């Protein structure tokens, strides 16, 4: 009896041990919804690479930035992580994540040209690649086709002038209390993408100074503020919008500038009767189709990873066209890899098609560590001009002074390190 138990224990230990001993364990941090749905892909990766185990950890988006920085300070960074691509510059400058150029050269199956150029560009800091795009995000217009048809237009115009004209017609024809466009005052994406469309670099001199009082930004800002001033958009923050989908269904708002995550939400939350009465359209620009934001998430490899080769295998696996298409079906996130767009579901859906068109015209936001703070200051300047009674010139002059002060440390460091921030001795 005892002997049998002993033998059984040995057997169990041996069985358990054989798999574990040789295995390398990778820590992979994914955020929010992506972490919930990526597990099947990770398990498949483990089956294809018997020597590697992946410890998948879910990080909520709201705590992600803080957690990444504290993990870095506390020497507890994972091997691989999903990173919102506006955070890539900050973590690269911190020396938290590793450049991938040599790994890319050795992996022809991850060709930079296989990705949307604007999206790829968000990961390139001072000429080096720090992340591989995982999925993409950009902003375009979701609108009610039936309301638009009443203005006599079949589709969204491609220019600012045409766009405004359609909105003015919607407004004059408008139902009581309704608005042609919802553009929450506390979202930075809209003023920033309008400025990028007008050709503003947002920051100039290699991210040393703000370019807010220059004509391009001022032109876009004038257009932006005008939409509120002429009551084409309500003067509200998104915390004041109780139920966006209800408002859209009731025709209280005829259009909304938002991202691909809302494709699913609109399908789920709008009543069935409305499903063939809404569509998506690429962003209009000042004089023709406009650019939009190059958003999304990238996969990055941390410098302190003890297993960079295995970590790169995981990134490579998740970047393959087949996995990219599967990830789209699991998460609803649009693939970063162009080949994955051959997927039949993606090709058949005209609402996704508008994103496909827009993705060829996306531009990164300035790649500086201070970007989030600057973006917040931009929305505050908009709010001051819209609700605070400041003139546009005043609001922009204040904004420029604020941003130049925020960038003071960056200027000093650039001067000390000979015009770049990446090369320094980590302590």
């Amino acid at each position: 009896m005892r002997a049998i138990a002993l033998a059984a224990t040995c057997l169990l230990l041996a069985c358990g041990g054989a798999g574990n001993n040789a295995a390398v364990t990778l820590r992979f941090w994914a955020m929010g919804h992506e972490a919930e749905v990526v597990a099947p892909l990770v398990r498949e990766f483990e089956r294809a690479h018997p020597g590697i185990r992946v410890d998948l950890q879910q990080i909520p988006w709201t705590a992600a930035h803080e957690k990444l920085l504290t993990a870095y300070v506390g020497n507890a960074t994972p091997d691989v992580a999903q990173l919102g691509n506006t955070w890539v510059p900050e973590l690269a400058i911190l020396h938290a994540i590793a450049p991938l150029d040599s790994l890319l050269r050795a992996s022809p199956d991850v060709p930079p040209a296989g990705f949307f150029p604007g999206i790829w560009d968000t990961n390139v800091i001072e000429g080096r690649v720090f992340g591989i795009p995982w999925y993409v995000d950009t902003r375009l217009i979701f609108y009610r086709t039936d309301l638009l048809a009443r203005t006599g237009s079949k589709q969204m115009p491609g220019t600012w002038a045409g766009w405004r004209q359609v909105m003015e017609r919607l407004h004059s024809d408008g139902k009581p209390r309704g608005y042609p466009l919802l553009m929450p005052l506390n979202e930075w994406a809209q003023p920033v993408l309008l400025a990028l469309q007008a050709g503003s670099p947002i920051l100039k001199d290699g991210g040393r100074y703000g370019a807010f009082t220059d004509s391009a930004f001022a032109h876009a800002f004038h257009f932006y503020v005008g939409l509120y001033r002429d009551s084409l958009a309500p003067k509200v923050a998104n915390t004041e919008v109780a139920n966006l989908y209800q408002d859209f269904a009731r025709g209280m708002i005829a259009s909304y500038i938002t991202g691909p995550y809302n494709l699913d939400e609109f399908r789920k939350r709008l009543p069935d009767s409305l499903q063939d009465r809404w569509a998506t359209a690429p962003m209009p620009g000042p004089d023709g189709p406009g650019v939009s934001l190059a958003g999304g998430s990238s996969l990055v490899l941390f410098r302190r990873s003890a297993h960079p080769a295995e970590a790169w295998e995981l990134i490579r696996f998740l970047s393959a066209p087949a996995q990219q298409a599967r990830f789209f079906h699991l998460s609803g996130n649009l693939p970063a890899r162009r080949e994955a767009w051959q997927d039949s579901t993606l090709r058949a859906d005209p609402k996704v098609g508008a994103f496909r068109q827009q993705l060829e015209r996306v531009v990164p936001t300035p790649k500086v560590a201070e970007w989030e703070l600057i973006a917040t200051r931009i929305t505050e300047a908009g709010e001051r001009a819209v609700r605070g009674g400041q003139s546009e010139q005043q609001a922009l002059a204040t904004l420029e002074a604020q941003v130049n002060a925020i960038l003071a440390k960056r200027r000093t460091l650039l001067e000390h390190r000979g015009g770049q921030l990446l090369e320094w001795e980590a302590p």
Partner: protein
Amino acid sequence: MNVERRQARAAWGFLLPAVVLLAAFFVLPVLAAFGLSLTDFDVYAVADPSVARFVGIDNYLHLFESPVFWAALRNTFYFVLVGGPLSVATSLAAALLVNGRLTRWKGFFRSAYFAPVVTTLVAVAIVWRYLYHPVFGPIDQFLDWIGIGRVDWLGSPDWAMPAIIILAVWKNFGYNMLIFIAGLQAIPDDLYDAAELDGASWWQRFRHITLPMLAPTFLFVAIVTMIGYFQLFAEPYVMTQGGPLRSTLSVVLFMYEEGFRWWRIGNAAAIAFILFAIMLVATLVQFRLRPKED
């Protein structure tokens, strides 16, 4: 002399563990934070501490020049000076009601009024955001019905702070109410009986017996409430994020954003010390104003 010294040494021996703990977990961090407030420690310094520079009192000077800081300070004082007395008055009124001789089901009301104190603010905020909604919210529907008209509670810079104050008073009055009830129960009934015999009205009894007898409780409640209200954070954080137009940005929320959102640690530490100084002065003033005991 010798005995005294030995006793003093023994006393220090007993105090030592507490003193060591205080030094390690209070004095040292406070000194370190003060040191940080004299540097420009930021996200670059997180990576490479050598790029943090000693800047003297520059952080403080920049704060005093910054309109955002003054807005935060003004909002915080608004909240403390309006919300504080309102909260104490509500607590006292509730305590008098619950403690009244004719009140039935005292236990039930005590628990009911105390319930908001122990519920999670995040859950409460969802309900209140609905209550404040300008179209569907019951508060505005009521105001509309009685002819006052709708108020855009959370969307208007003038009304957002009153909305936050109402929420905070509702959320917190139960705690002070319990302390007032304890104070009220400590007042001997003979005093009221004697006053009643002398023909004192309800108001006279309240004014000349209840209030003076509650004075020490009042001081405690006032100081604790004031300190708590100076630290206004969670309500605007979940309800308005400091907006609209920064009308609900409090000093602590500003400090949180500077420190943990933008990692401008030097600045955040300077804000903490200014808040500390203000609270210290306000507490001292309240001690001075305390009615002298005979």
